[in-house]
């Protein structure tokens, strides 16, 4: 008796172990929380040295981006991310890693058509839809602001 696609899907679901969701969530919570705390520490240090709040906010992002790029470059970030999952992906570190890693990977195809052309292969959709939704959101606020 032949197995139908629906039956096979059920068999596959039964045979495939689920991702360890609770463990993943806990790791993501603690590592993500640690990164946010690190951001706050950097912010406090910067303001302590007299840098304005606005500039400090921008600098926090920049420091985390540079740190991530260095950790990606020396091959450490992916090992942390393997356990941290969303904990390293959701903060700005995930975005930085998604730009730095293809830049490294495709350097063998040259600086222009390799690194530059592929650098935003993963982060590109975030930029496209991030900018698009910002425009949409801005338009909504503008229209509602008229009345």
């Amino acid at each position: 008796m032949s197995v139908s696609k629906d039956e096979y899907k059920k068999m596959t679901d039964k045979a495939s172990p689920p991702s360890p969701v609770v463990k993943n969530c806990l790791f993501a919570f603690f590592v993500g929380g640690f990164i946010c705390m690190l951001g706050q520490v950097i912010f406090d240090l910067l303001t302590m040295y007299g840098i304005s709040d606005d500039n400090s906010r921008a600098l926090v992002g920049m420091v985390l981006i540079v740190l991530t790029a260095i950790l990606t470059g020396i091959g450490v970030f992916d090992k942390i991310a393997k356990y941290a999952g969303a904990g390293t992906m959701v903060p700005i570190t995930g975005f930085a890693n998604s730009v730095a890693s293809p830049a490294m990977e495709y350097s063998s195809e040259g600086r222009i058509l390799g690194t530059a052309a592929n650098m935003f292969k993963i982060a590109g959709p975030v930029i496209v839809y991030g900018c698009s939704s910002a425009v949409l959101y801005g338009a909504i606020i503008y229209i509602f602001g008229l009345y």
Partner: protein
Amino acid sequence: MGQRIGKNTILLDSKPCIISNAAVVGRKEGEGPLKDGFDAIFDDGTMGQDTWEKAESQMLRAAVETAIQKAELTAGDIQTVFSGDLLNQCIGSNFGLRELGIPFAGLYGACSTMALSLCMASLAIESGAFERVVAATSSHFCSAEKQFRYPLEYGGQRPPSAQWTVTGSGACVLGSTKGRPYIDAIHIGTIQDLGIKDGNNMGAAMAPAAKKTISDFLSDTGTSPSDYDAIVTGDIGEIGSTLLRELLMRENGIDISSVHKDCGLMIFDCKTQDVHSGGSGCGCSASVLCSEWLNGIRDGKYKNIMFAATGALMSPVSSLQGESIPGIAHGVIIRG
């Protein structure tokens, strides 16, 4: 001349002999349970090259050259090499074999390429027009990840159903002379697709193809699983193996559990080597066949095996376009 038995099985008259076999692998594979059987273990994943693609080519070339040397032949004695790999346009083989000056037939069978190249090489010998040919294939974790998944340094999580592409290559020199091990019969597989779309569950996508080839092969040859020392699948891993056994029981009433082995589960220790559902890739079945199985037959440990390597015939484009993953499995019966 070869004789077609049943629907898709060709029984070979010439019994092409596997004169020699060679398996070369990367470091992780060289730390696995089969480490003692490999001809060479490359500690450096780059193989001294500046790109992953060149590294794969270098590895394939090393396997082919080692097999030719073990057969006490030179490249000039080989009349054709049948080879393929996972990279676009099979560049692993194209560039790896560029300098050898051997006539080359490029094949694409995804991870089933070792069985496909053995089938083609056997048919070439069977035709009477070839005396010495090579069947080979390779895969490299880094070049495969780059083409099919994410950059190496990308920080993502792999689900438990994912498999680990083997960095390895296997090559066999086949000849028209009598000897052992020899290829008794071949079976060209049929594409099977039961609608699996999850690229992280290749074992499930390929299990129906393995099931079809194994059940057809057994019925065509009028044999049962107990007639073999082992029925060897390529790289369906833990999930695929469970599904294959269940499919064979439900659809054909055949129980292969006592003789079934999967190369993907043999090459790594799934518990300690963090490979989730097992190894995969062309190099997985190739390096395990060209070490453990063929050497085992030479040593008298095994008498006969059915080798059914499985392949997933999708591409990154087809996956993005929402297509499911078609599977294929080619088979050979090797006796000694």
